[in-house]
């Protein structure tokens, strides 16, 4: 093929070469401009761009601290009741999911979730984050990651586990998804359990994942929360829950609460309510009321279990003596209303202080109140009784037990409101027109029988800090001289007498143990005023011990429907079972003298 002559004409070639040089000259000029520009951007403006980079790239993170565990004693053995376990949340980024059905089927085979639901989630538009599963085990996590699907990831998070199942669930509370304690101990001691979160300032990728290679990462280590040892005795707690459950079933009640407390320290040995819930599945609970520990959060009008405290106050004030007798007219007219007794017990006649408790005489405790006023219910009587209720037995205020949502209960003011205050005060002597929780009743009774010291009821025995340092909780005295020691000594036999005169099956061996108590059949206030005449709460306040009182037991049964007086028919058998169990399991030290 004849190509045109391509040999250069020298002048064409020379012109070409010259123009190549011109072209190259321009190129050099541009490269130099680039060099100057680079100097400006990289050297002069370096700090500006470095800061701009950091403001995009540097992110601050909270490193969650390990939440403290909770253990309890079973005899001498320390048993964990709340531990942590890493569980995983599975999420997906729909943008990366090419075959939603395939992915959904594989995931479903591992997590057990509904495959078509998952597929729908994975088809979601306009979002890069859908949650496909929660609380997956480490094993499931491993299998999910092994699928190696792009757009599928898991995120670990500490969750509480409960090796003892639902034991003391309402006392413990739970930890919500954002890591905060709710209800019970978890709420009350949230900050102590939670510890101090650490901080990570790190250069991250655009999605916020810290880059390991970055040299600007700074870290403040998280400080783990304290591990707590509670005063709860697992054996007693377990028995109490069983007894309460059976008690509610037997009496066809709505529910029941009970507190077992050591009056010598204020330590709570067991505390339970029925119905309860499984804390491992707290998110499946539909009725939030189940979360509450009614023993501290549900004050009610307590009924006749108040009578031993009224009597203790009158004895302590010196207006009556344990052996005092008086004429009981079977009714008192106060502010135009008649205070009477239960018909079969309450005829007119000469009564003793022991009769007041044994026969549960409303007129008897009203008489005691009158003695505080020098013979009638007046300002002086009300002031003295109010002082005992509020400043000695500490009603109307929270005890400060380590529980969320503790209620204060209610004590009417002693000042004359011009609306039958004397009748109201007469009512408070037998536990009406005032409210208290089981924990308040137990703590007040403990002070009345332990020689007069009101110990703060408490659940924490010791706290073990992250560094291993152990802080033993010493009992805290909230009120001293609640009653004189000799009044305690007088009250114990009066209450033993009540137990002896009532029908327990089997009875108690009072020669080796002291077992005392008092029933209460409490009227329930109607919302509009007045009381229901067909609904009652059954209550019992008692104790078990040997040389000294070792357990104070408060039992509240919510609206039993098995007939009879609620206190005697519903609460008393539960107390009896608890007291027998404590003795039978050798948890009570018998008398030595």
């Amino acid at each position, binding site marked *: 093929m004849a*190509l045109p002559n391509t040999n250069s004409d020298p002048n*064409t070639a020379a012109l070409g070469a010259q123009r190549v040089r011109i072209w190259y000259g321009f190129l050099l000029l541009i490269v130099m401009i680039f060099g100057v520009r*680079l100097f400006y*951007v*990289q050297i002069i403006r370096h700090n500006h761009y470095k800061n701009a980079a950091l403001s995009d790239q540097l992110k601050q993170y909270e490193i969650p601290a390990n939440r403290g565990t909770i253990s309890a004693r079973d005899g001498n053995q320390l048993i964990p009741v709340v531990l942590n376990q890493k569980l995983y949340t599975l999420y997906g980024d729909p943008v990366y999911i090419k075959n939603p059905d395939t992915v959904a089927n594989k995931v479903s085979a591992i997590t057990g979730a509904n495959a078509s639901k998952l597929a729908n989630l994975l088809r979601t538009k306009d979002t890069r984050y859908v949650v496909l599963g929660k609380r997956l085990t480490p094993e499931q996590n491993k299998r999910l990651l092994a699928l190696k699907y792009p757009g599928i990831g898991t995120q670990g998070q500490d969750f509480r586990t409960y090796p003892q199942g639902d034991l003391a669930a309402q006392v413990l509370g739970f930890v919500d998804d954002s890591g905060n304690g709710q209800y019970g101990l978890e709420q009350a001691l949230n900050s102590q359990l939670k510890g101090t979160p650490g901080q990570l300032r790190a250069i991250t990728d*655009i999605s916020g994942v810290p880059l390991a290679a970055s040299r600007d990462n700074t870290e403040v280590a998280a400080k783990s929360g304290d591990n707590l040892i509670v005063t709860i005795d697992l054996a007693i707690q377990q028995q109490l829950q069983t007894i309460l459950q059976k008690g509610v079933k037997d009496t066809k009640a709505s529910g029941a609460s009970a507190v077992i407390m050591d009056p010598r320290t204020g330590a709570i040995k067991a505390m339970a309510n029925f119905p309860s819930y499984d804390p491992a599945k707290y998110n499946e609970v539909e009725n939030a009321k189940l979360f509450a520990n009614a023993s501290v959060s549900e004050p009610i009008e307590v009924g006749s279990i108040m009578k031993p405290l009224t009597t203790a106050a009158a004895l302590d004030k010196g207006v009556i003596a344990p052996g005092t007798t008086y004429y009981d007219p079977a009714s008192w007219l106060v502010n135009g209303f008649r205070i009477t007794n239960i018909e079969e017990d309450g005829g007119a006649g000469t009564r003793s202080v022991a009769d007041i408790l044994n026969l549960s005489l409303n007129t008897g405790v009203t008489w005691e109140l009158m003695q505080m006023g020098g013979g009638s219910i007046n300002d002086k009587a009300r002031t003295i009784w109010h002082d005992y209720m509020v400043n000695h037995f500490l009603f109307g205020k929270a005890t400060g037990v380590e529980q969320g949502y503790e209620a204060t209960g209610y004590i009417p003011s002693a000042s004359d409101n011009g609306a039958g205050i004397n009748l109201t005060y007469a009512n408070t002597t037998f536990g009406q027109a005032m409210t208290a929780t089981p924990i308040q009743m137990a703590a007040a009774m403990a002070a009345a029988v332990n020689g007069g010291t009101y110990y703060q009821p408490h659940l924490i025995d010791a706290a073990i800090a992250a560094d291993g340092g152990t802080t033993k909780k010493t009992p805290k005295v909230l009120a001293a001289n609640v009653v004189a020691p000799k009044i305690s000594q007088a009250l114990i036999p009066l209450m033993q007498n009540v137990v002896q005169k009532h029908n327990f099956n089997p009875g108690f061996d009072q020669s080796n143990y002291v077992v005392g108590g008092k029933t209460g059949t409490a009227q329930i206030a109607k919302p509009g005023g007045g009381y229901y005449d067909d609904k009652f709460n059954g209550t019992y306040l008692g104790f078990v011990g040997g040389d000294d009182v070792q357990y104070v037991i408060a039992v509240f049964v919510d609206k039993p429907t098995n007939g009879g007086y609620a206190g005697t028919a519903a609460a008393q058998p539960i107390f009896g079972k608890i007291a027998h169990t404590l003795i039978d399991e050798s948890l009570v030290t018998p008398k030595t003298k």
Partner: protein
Amino acid sequence: MRPSTPRRRPVIGQRGSGRQDTAGVLALGRKHRPDYWLVILCAALLSIGLIVVYAISPALAQASHVSTSHFVNKQLLAISLSIVAFIATSQIPLSIWRRLAKPLLIIAAIATVLALLLPVNPAYPAHRWVRLGSFSFQSVEIVKFAALLALAGFFTDRIAHGWLDSYEKTLKPLLIAVLVAGVVIAGPQKLHAQSDLGSMAVLIAIVGAMCFVAGLPLKRLALVGAVLIIGATLVILPSQYRRERLASFVHPESNCQDAGYQACQALIAVGSGGMAGLGLGRSVQAYGYLPEAANDSIFAIYAEKFGFIGCLVLLGLFTAFFSRLKTIAERAPDNFSRLVVCGVLAWLSVQTIINIGAMIGLLPLKGITLPLISYGGTSVVFVAAAVGLVFQVSKYTTFAAPIHVMTEKKGGHSHENHHDGRRLRGAYHPDPSGRASS
């Protein structure tokens, strides 16, 4: 590479040795040692690109859910292919390549039509890619390569026939060709065109450089330039996307969150590099902040890693590389080979300038690769092919650049001016006295 052994010596000065006769086109060129610096600089630039891709591949792999070695392996494959392309273009004589220009243009046209018709990847909605199974390439790279050869042949013809000044014979067909290419390559996406203004600019640079070097009168060049500026304005203004890009170029900091995002992140990467850079493994902008970190934005990542010093080294390497191309173009044995080398110089240098200029905020973003550095097979293979052509020319360069000769009109040998003493460093130079006698 063949060692310089005595066996080669006898070839020197022996006219009519078979090779140059069959080569035909390079009639005057005696074959001598090629310019190995061309290969060395190419290899250096390719290595830098590979190192940067390797260093950021964890970030890339994380973003696209592939293995860490995916990108390096693909780039190594591209480099292997590019070596094949280089050998082909440097060994197959230029005369054959000249004859292949037309078939190559047809292939380029077919590839472009395929790119326009085949379905697009939703992540990259422009019709720039030909996808055949797992194999894919950018059609415009073939267009550039074919246009390079076709234009060089075209201008050589015009020079030979003395038609360079003719409007009918030279300027008109040229403008028509540029217009057709402009509509297809730079046309808006909604008309299913490629919307690739960067590549169009490179094509125009190739055309312009050849016009200029071929010796088109400056008045004509001014006319062509005016037409191109008007054309560019007409292309840019109707496109919302381009107006935004232009606006974000003028006021980068105020558009950081939307249209100017990539420009801002590129500047942040470059600026945060400082004097010495963050270090090879310490780029942060590659972790999702700067789009196209391995491709169009690779210079910014390089600048972040290696700082001002590293940038000067890179600019130095590019300048050295371009200066080799310049020298080879100056001393090309004939018009065709000079125009080919000029075209390659225009192609690679303009692409480099457009790419780096965008990264340092001097030019608007265009979405084209940095030659030899950017990740991406098509670009590397065709750049290597182009460099292969230059490498072939470097075997036949004259010993000095031609200067104006007043006494001789035609047929003169450009290398008669060997006494100006300038030598193509590194290349083998035959003995001037031996040459003079031929």
